[in-house]
């Protein structure tokens, strides 16, 4: 029974357990409950992945109303893989979430925070598995609202978390409203909200309405994807949120936005790269390249490790957009490889940063002095992640960059080739700031050697190992990505 209903349980489990977790009074028990639920959700997502691996598309009719009358959950390989990413990320973060909240959030508030965390997970998974465009909006709001609150919880250590959350709320709500306007235009000319149905009916619909509707949806999604020039919310959100929450967001939030872009451009709107017969694909490489450059350059100038990583994420999102813009099965596959690999690399770095923050109380660059001495493992993991961001061979980051550059080479797109290669250099500059700060800078007073708190070891270590592992044995990731892309474009894998 669970296997047949995994499609809906993967969302409903965290969604309905959140209210219960919120009622638990003991923070330790609530934290453990959140971990267990996230882990169970990961099991369900894995189940879905197994079910869709052979190309099956699961269509689950909620309330047993056939689409387009009712809401449909439509799970293909991409949705299942994304659900896995989200739930695994949540599980890993839940491992160190309670520890990283020490001293930042009062114990009495923690159960509710864990509940908000689960709601955020449920919202994101809900976006990923649904086949109904209005249902996307509803779950987008669940995840967004909980995200605003989670970010604001960083106010215990830095009051700027409040303004960061507020800025994100205004932008997020505006973006969501744009999304709803877009849905209105699409609905008025097609009469349906089911995405697959929408795709079919769009062919005969008036072009202008489709153009405007899809543009507004694009802007709404672009905001969530921190696409230039709508990226302003992201560095603050990542830098001031509680470190564990920042880790979760870095691994999931913008990735889901990229997912939506892929989904909207392909699943709903028949032609890859086109949203409603508008070729947004042509927009993506310039925007992506600009993000790649701007994100990297600003990262060099930041004074805080988490902010540095956030800007670096903007650069990496740019790389995903560039890949997506290159189009075709290979383009989508390259974007997906980047998406998953970056989630792993950045997740590992943010988790390690959270561990550093837990020991040091700060992630400012000068606080890193002496890190290689008193937290060698943490330093090693940071350097490993950094090398992956640069794109050094034998790390997952090299594979990510290589697929994009190779594709650009084959298409003779020299601008992309040059841009991506050049940003590697800027990446070296900001990663080496971490290395010099952690290895060469002399701390004011030597600290006793106290490495990662045990809670961080498993998540940071696993993500670090995956960073290496996927760099050497990249075949599973590449196969998965190209299978997904082939399924989306409708060619046989």
């Amino acid at each position, binding site marked *: 029974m669970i296997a047949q209903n995994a499609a809906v349980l993967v969302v409903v489990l965290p969604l309905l357990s959140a209210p219960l977790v919120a009622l638990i009074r003991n923070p330790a028990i609530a934290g453990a409950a959140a971990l267990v639920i996230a882990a169970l959700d990961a099991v369900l997502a894995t189940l879905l992945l197994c079910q869709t691996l052979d190309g099956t598309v699961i269509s689950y009719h909620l309330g047993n109303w056939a689409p387009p009358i009712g809401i449909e959950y439509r799970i293909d390989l991409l949705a299942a893989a994304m659900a896995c990413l989200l739930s695994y990320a949540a599980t890993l973060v839940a491992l160190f979430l309670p520890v990283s909240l020490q001293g930042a959030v009062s114990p009495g508030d923690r159960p509710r925070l864990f509940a908000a965390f689960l709601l955020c997970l449920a919202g994101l998974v809900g976006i990923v598995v649904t086949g109904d465009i209005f249902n996307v909006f509803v779950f987008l709001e669940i995840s967004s609202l909980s995200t605003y609150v989670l970010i604001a919880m960083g106010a215990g250590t830095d009051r700027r978390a409040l303004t960061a959350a507020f800025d994100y709320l205004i932008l997020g709500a505006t973006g969501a409203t744009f999304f709803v306007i877009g849905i209105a235009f699409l609905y008025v000319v097609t009469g349906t909200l089911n995405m697959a149905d929408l795709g079919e009916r769009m062919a005969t619909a008036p072009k202008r309405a489709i153009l405007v509707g899809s543009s507004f949806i694009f802007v709404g999604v672009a905001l969530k994807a921190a696409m230039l020039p709508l990226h302003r919310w992201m560095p603050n959100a990542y830098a001031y949120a509680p470190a564990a929450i920042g880790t979760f967001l870095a691994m999931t939030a913008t990735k889901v936005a990229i997912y939506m872009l892929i989904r909207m451009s392909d699943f709903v709107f028949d032609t890859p790269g086109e949203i409603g017969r508008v070729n947004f694909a042509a927009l993506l490489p310039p925007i992506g390249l600009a993000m790649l450059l701007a994100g990297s350059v600003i990262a060099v100038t930041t004074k805080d490790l988490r902010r540095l990583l956030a800007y670096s994420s903007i650069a990496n999102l740019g790389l995903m957009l560039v890949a997506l813009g290159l189009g075709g099965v290979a383009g989508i596959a390259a974007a997906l490889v980047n998406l998953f690999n970056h989630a792993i690399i950045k997740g590992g770095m943010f988790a390690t940063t959270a561990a550093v923050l837990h020991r040091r109380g700060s992630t400012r660059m000068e606080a890193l002095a002496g890190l290689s001495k008193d937290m060698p493992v943490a330093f090693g993991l940071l350097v490993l992640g950094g*090398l992956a961001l*640069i*794109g*050094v*061979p*034998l790390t997952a980051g*090299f*594979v990510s960059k*290589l*697929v994009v*550059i*190779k594709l650009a*080479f*084959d298409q003779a797109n020299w601008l992309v*080739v040059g841009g991506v*290669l*050049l940003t*590697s*250099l800027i990446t*070296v*500059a900001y990663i*080496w700031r971490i290395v*010099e700060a952690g*290895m*060469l800078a002399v701390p004011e007073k030597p600290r006793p050697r106290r490495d990662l708190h045990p809670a961080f070891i498993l998540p940071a270590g696993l993500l670090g190992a995956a960073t290496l592992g996927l*760099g*050497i*044995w*990249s*075949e599973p990731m*590449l196969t998965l990505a190209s299978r997904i892309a082939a399924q989306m474009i409708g060619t046989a894998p």
Partner: protein
Amino acid sequence: MTTADLMLTAILLPLAAALLIALAGRSPNLREAVTLAAAAGLAFTVWQLIAGFDAGTAPTIALAQILPGFTLMLRAEPIGLVFAGVAAGLWGLNSLYSIGYMRAEHAPRQTRFYACFALALSAAMAIAMAGNLATLFVAYEALTLVTYPLVVHWQTEGAIAGARRYLAYLLATSLVPFLGAILWTWSAAGTLDFTAGGILDGKLGDGALTVLLLLFAYGVGKAALMPLHGWLPAAMVAPTPVSALLHAVAVVKAGVFTLLKIAVYIFGIDVIGRGVGDVLIVIAAASVIAASVIAMTRDDLKARLAYSTVAQLAMVTLAVAIGSPLAIAAGILQLVMHAFGKITLFFGAGAIQVATHKKKLSEIAGIGAKLPLLMASFLVGALSVAGLPPLGGMWPKFLLLEAASARDLYLLIGCLGLSTLLTLGYLAPIFITAVFGKPGAEDPHALPHDDHGHGSGHLPLLALIPPVVTALGCLVLFVAAPAILRFVAPAIGLGVLP
């Protein structure tokens, strides 16, 4: 052991040694014993490989696939084995010297030093045995990264700045032009495997090939072709054994080795020879002369030697650019001969520093009297680098002249002659000042150092033996050069031996 096992051993042995060194950090003697044992083991392994090499049965070992078509694989071939032999053979001597030098200097962080040294050797072995450009690139990057802690070793402000420069040059060149050139090759040829006769002939026009060759020449920043040579003098902030490693054993040699390998197995020697390499000939020749001239102006001994390296390595690039079997043979021999000659010089400069705390040409007048054996070996090394018989260094210069005249490049012949004079011009003053110079007014600088208790004139035996051995090596190589040529001849299509 089979050839395949030996190849893996050659890479994994230093890797394992690095781990053991890190574990043995508490006991310096044990730690150094591990280094020396690993060096001996590696030398033995590589010797076995060379002795048992047979082109017909050389196996290919596939390690991993990063992308379809971008695979990691190993394959032994003569040029790589020569490089591996040089690196493995000199590691032991360099380690001995390191022990003497580092202990005398009371250097901190010695465990990191030896561990990174072993890692660098592992990377060098992987470069030597890379079966395709992908593998070579991966190992090349690894070598850059593991040598960074060595360069930054003293962690002074100057060291940090120098190391930053080192890293910036090497990563920038490798991540942009080198990787770009590799991908271009991959895109054009559909493969990256090292294949006899090259893989690019007919795939790209000669104009594109010229550009591609230049991309490679500058992409392989370790070859220090001017004007991208700046990292080499900057990296002189490192402890002297590291400088020796950088200039003689692993890093720059890995660079020119990569160029040789690309010339022989990616472009094909005759493809370059038919005109693709002409632009590079001019650049390399100019690089030889310019670097030699700059070397003459440097007062700091190590800086002088660094520019000397730039000049000498440009000769290998020149050999690549000329593009005939004879020239490539000269390049390979230059790789070997320069390694022995230059390591002798660096050992000498470091020993002078250990014994007298002097680093500059203007300070060393008259110290030769206290260090006769050292200065004798220094002289041998200097003459070998300059290319005078009866020393190994004569062979590559001679072959290069032959190759240049075979292609009627008379201007180049003039350049090479001039470079020999210039080489003598910047190396001879060191020897002459040290042996015949009169200690002058600058002497007081040395006095305070005497308080340290390891002052003037005292040279640890471990810092003396290695230069003497390598100097003898220069002599031996004069005789052994034909054997090396015979070993590599089939790979580069060298017919009649001169």
